[in-house]
């Protein structure tokens, strides 16, 4: 239990970053990155595409961002270790230069996401849901629950016919 604590915290941190860059992706695009390799795409759903890699280090992102005394450090892509959570495996990749975090993306998503993805794939053809609305329309025919011949006179179909004859 004790060992799970930091891992979950790191996961929560990574997810928090993901949430941040969902809402404000522009802020994570490095403004002075023209000399640097292109950052990973800011869309976490396209993580299966090949990553633009300079250096790959298998270590948690937090341990990769070490201060350095050399000038003009190169940007690095750092792949975090695979962290098991109660929701499934989470793995993130970050682009760092020196101590600056330039970009982050998930390369393995929590169970809840992949599960819902599976469900939506499985459910095709899908169903749609909407609120019931009453329409009055220009129609030829009415489909509805079977009425008796006595009840027909009160049906919308018979009302339509009466209105047409009038």
């Amino acid at each position, binding site marked *: 239990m004790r060992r799970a604590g930091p891992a979950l915290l790191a996961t929560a941190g990574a997810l928090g970053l993901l949430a941040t860059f969902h809402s404000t992706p522009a802020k994570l695009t490095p403004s002075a990155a023209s000399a640097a390799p292109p950052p990973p795409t800011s869309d976490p759903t396209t993580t299966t595409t090949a990553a633009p890699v300079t250096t790959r280090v298998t270590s948690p992102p937090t341990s990769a961002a070490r201060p350095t005394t050399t000038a003009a450090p190169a940007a690095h892509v750092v792949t975090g270790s695979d962290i098991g959570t109660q929701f499934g495996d989470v793995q993130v990749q970050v682009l760092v230069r020196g101590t600056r975090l330039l970009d982050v993306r998930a390369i393995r998503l929590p169970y809840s996401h992949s599960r819902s993805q599976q469900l939506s794939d499985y459910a095709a053809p899908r169903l749609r849901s*909407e609120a019931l609305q009453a329409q009055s329309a220009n129609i030829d025919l009415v489909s509805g629950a079977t009425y008796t011949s006595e009840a027909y006179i*009160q049906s919308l179909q018979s009302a339509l016919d009466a209105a047409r004859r009038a």
Partner: protein
Amino acid sequence: MTVRVEAMWGTTIRVEVRDALDPTELDVVFDWFGEVDARFSTWRDDSEISRLAAGTLRLADASDDVRTVLARCEDAKQRSGGAFDIAYAVHPRVAPAPGRRLIDPSGFVKGWGVDRAAELLVARGIDAFAINAGGDIVTRGRPRADGGWRIGIQHPDERGCVAAVIELEDGAVATSARYERGDHILDPRTGEPAVGLMSVTVVGADLADADAAATAAMVLGDDGPSWLASLPDVEALCITNDRRVVTTDGFDRHRCHTPSLP
């Protein structure tokens, strides 16, 4: 335009033809509806269905039409996992002879009879018409140059309103629902009234199959919409008890987008 409306099969059958005809030209279909009634009615002691139930007619000696209908009812039962079953909820009028199986295919015969009536009209060169048998509809052709038949799906609460409008040329629309005659649909698997949905409308090519699917979906209740979505070649609109509309993904292609006139 020609319209002829007659009370038959315990409901009202309305035939509309785009072209102006002598109404007697529609005798062919109304005679056919009478023939279906004579052969299938559970209200007539001498119908084949009553005689099958009484044990005075063997299935092998029944007409081709009766054997075809019973075979298709069995198919519908298999497809629906028993949610559609003509051997249940039989009208007490046709209590079977001892050892005989209860059958009442009325719920299938209506759609089948209308499908066959459409073939009769097409064979006579009538190519634009709609038959509405108590809310279950078959259409062919176009009633006007700019589109197909515009069909409203009855709103469950407001008699003068519809819940959706679809446009159809060659097709069938069946609705099964609780709002008109109460909880008359029983779950053949439990014997309890089917109350999980308010209304199910199925659009397809064949009215008998569409009607059987609508009835089965009513019985399936919460599972009805996803079961309908799994069927090939039909689209459906279900109205839930809490008045939401659940449609299959392809239902929208039937929806009428032409602006309606006030």
